[in-house]
């Protein structure tokens, strides 16, 4: 398998805090790649750097062979890296359907003139956007609530809607920031089935998650971050036994 995402030497500093310090790893095409680490390890910062929301101080990353480091967020989304947010960031006062339709923005072209004149191409594009948005809502299992305002959806449904919105951008790599946070066991199971389906349909997934059971059962490989550095990487069962990882989470053994 070839690498889809390759990161090398990514560093990011906030004032006196070195949030990321030379992080390097690569994600293979078609895998579910987990990222874990104690709070403050730099997971979300890494997400923000990879999706262009923060500029990086050093290092670079390539998606599908293209160097995306330093590009603005919208260009990175256009190149095929979509994300969800740890603290859900939906377009709260728009309907679920409109949220997903906005996800299609980057794959469509109509401008002001097309919209004002209602050209044939514009109408065809609008119809296609709406059709695709319906499909995606059904895909993540909230088609019945398409016309609800995003802020009126149940918590678990909001998480699903974020995934649908991200999928609407036709990503090569879907980056999920703690998608199971706050979910109960049933919802987590359903989420797991959804993610397996997304992967089976050809999208590679990068997953930050605190739910260790979910990470261990779902991911192909796991990266462990601690204090902004890579602590360990490998298949979940190995990583789980790695003494450094255990130390980072539980503290060192008492001598």
């Amino acid at each position, binding site marked *: 398998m070839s690498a889809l995402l390759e990161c090398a030497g990514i560093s990011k500093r906030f004032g006196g805090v070195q949030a990321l310090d030379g992080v390097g790893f690569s994600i293979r095409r078609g895998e579910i790649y987990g990222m874990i680490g104690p709070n403050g390890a730099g997971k979300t910062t890494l997400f923000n750097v990879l999706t262009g*929301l923060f500029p990086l101080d050093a290092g670079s990353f390539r998606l599908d062979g293209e160097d995306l480091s330093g590009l603005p967020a919208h260009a990175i989304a256009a190149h095929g890296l979509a994300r969800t947010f740890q603290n859900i960031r939906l377009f709260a006062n728009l309907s679920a359907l409109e949220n997903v339709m906005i996800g299609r923005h980057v794959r469509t072209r109509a401008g002001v003139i097309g919209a004002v004149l209602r050209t044939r191409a514009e109408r065809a594009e609008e119809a296609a956007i709406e059709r695709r948005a319906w499909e995606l809502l059904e895909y993540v299992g909230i088609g019945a609530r398409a016309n609800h305002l995003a802020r009126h959806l149940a918590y678990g449904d909001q998480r699903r809607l974020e995934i649908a919105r991200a999928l609407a951008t036709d990503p090569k790599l879907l980056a999920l920031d703690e998608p199971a946070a706050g979910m109960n066991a049933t919802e987590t199971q359903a989420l797991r089935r959804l993610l397996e389906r997304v992967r089976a349909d050809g999208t590679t997934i990068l997953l930050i998650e605190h739910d260790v059971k979910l990470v261990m059962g779902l991911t192909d490989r796991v990266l462990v971050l601690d204090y902004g550095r890579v602590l360990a990487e490998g298949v979940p069962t190995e990583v789980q036994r790695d003494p450094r990882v255990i130390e980072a989470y539980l503290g060192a053994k008492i001598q």
Partner: protein
Amino acid sequence: MKGIGIALIAIALIALPFALAGIGTAWVRIANFAILYMLLALGLNIVVGFAGLLDLGYIAFYAVGAYAYALLASPHFNLHLPFWIILPIGALLACGFGVLLGVPTLKLRGDYLAIVTLGFGEIIRIFLNNLSRPVNITNGPQGISLIDPFRIGGFSFSRYDTVLGVTLSGPIKYYYLLTAVLLLVLLVNLRLARSRIGRAWEAIREDEVAARAMGINTTHVKLLAFAMGASFGGVAGGMFAAIQGFISPESFVLVESVMVLSMVVLGGMGNIWGVVLGAALLSFVPELLRYTVEPMQRALFGRMLIEPEVIRMLLFGLALVLMMLFRPAGLLPSAVRRRELARRDG
């Protein structure tokens, strides 16, 4: 059913100026100003209602359009270009100023943006006030007078004319022209609101970070909102100059920006029909008061106790307070657009 409805509205719109002229010619002029305010409110609604960018200097674009018209069609520079050339120039110029305001404020939101736009509006007005020396461009506080009315060939919008046996006064002609422009601007707004661009505006209003992460070029989309809003203001300004025949910087003070913003907020931000209603109410009700307060007081107390102007601002303030208490989202809040499940096999 829909056809009948449209026909009834069309008949009402055509008959309205004659009904108003029956009460008094002043009322046709009031209707014309109401339409100008609707145009302004619709333009500002793109910036404030759709894109969520609080703009307190919007009247500056109205001023740019008005001065563009006045300078190119008056004895001031002895230029008399036809209106159908100047209006697009005014729109483009206002659009340019919109981008000029947009570029340095891209990273600002909320109160910070409001302060900068407020300053921008004042700067434009102060420039207009002072650009009379050393080279007299704007004629300073005296303003520009004897501005040409709209003219197509020999047909002037300022004179009485008899068309097909109907006598049309100047204001009535302008009413029809303004109504036509309003319908056009409404159509543009309605279509934009339900388009890819309209959704991108709403996305940056709701959450700019998420919008960027979803691939929306927020720089581009924000500037587009400023530019479009400003060009509508510019067109309205050009028409204002032609209708009035005289403009001065005094017409473009901060209170006017606040008034247009109040129309947008009162009607319901982001809802096109709400904004039109808000503009209509805030233009007509004060005039109604002007004509009813005095006779009412004379009938009740035998003399005038409170000036109409005072009551007007009092009621205006009261209306806004009540609004914020009972209908904070506006008279016609922006509704969720429901979509029927489209045929998914297509």
